[in-house]
């Protein structure tokens, strides 16, 4: 399985990468903001995308809206500090399949990844 990590923090990308490694996912592409992700996502062809909300250049919500115009099916999980209900609803309306609030435990993130992939495969 191929996963794209979109977060402006390298620390957070490293943490997420290590969680992915623990669940056997090693094909990972990283992007540091929405713009960077849009330039890489076509060539990489991820099976799952984890995307942060607050990033410079292009935020996660704008990325999702743009990406969903061309791709309706690739599962997207928002991983963000934005925990308000209104933000979660906004993200779901834009097209995310699941939502993880930072801070998170490795168990929670891997559980959300597994549940998202199961739902999207059904």
């Amino acid at each position, binding site marked *: 399985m191929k996963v794209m990590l979109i977060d402006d923090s390298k*620390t957070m990308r490293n943490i997420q990468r290590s969680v992915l490694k623990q669940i056997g996912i090693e094909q990972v592409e990283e992007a540091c903001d929405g713009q960077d992700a849009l330039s890489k996502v076509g060539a990489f062809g991820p099976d799952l995308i984890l995307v942060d909300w607050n990033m410079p250049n292009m935020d996660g919500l704008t990325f999702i809206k743009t990406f969903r115009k061309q791709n309706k099916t690739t599962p997207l999980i928002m991983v963000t500090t934005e925990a308000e209900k209104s933000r979660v609803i906004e993200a779901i309306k834009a097209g995310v399949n699941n939502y993880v609030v930072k801070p998170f435990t490795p168990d929670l993130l891997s559980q959300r990844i597994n549940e998202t992939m199961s739902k999207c495969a059904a």
Partner: protein
Amino acid sequence: MDASYITPFVKSIQNVFSTMLQLPVTVNDPQIKQGTTPSHDVSGIIGMSGDVVGTIILSFKTDAAESIVALFCGEKLESGSPDFADAVGELVNMVSGGAKAQFTDTKDVSISCPSVIVGKDHGVALPSDVPCVVIPCTTDCGEFVIEVAIREAGATAGAAANNASASA
């Protein structure tokens, strides 16, 4: 500053450090910051805008910052490295985001991307119209403080200062 703005930061600090670092934090009595005495080596800074405006600063001495970042990243990083600054920025981002989520049921508030200052004995000057509450924290990795200088967008400087005095 509204006293109800302090508790969310206390809860958020403890949640971030226990969840991401497995590091318990003892939060000591908040105080009103007097002047801008330079006393920090590493500071992560986030701006807040919308219905609540101001600045959140997470400040450390170098030793404490390096120990905490090592725990967060799983490796020792020098305080001058970009990855070290990135980690400090992510910590203040999570603390601010977690606090914001607790007091914005009816408010629309955004946080900026973090900035990080690394430099021995620096101070961070804040706007004079917003009182700053300092929350001292103790961990097994050392001490740090979180400075919260926020107010409702419509509040006057006088009202914000009176509320801060009442809350500290």
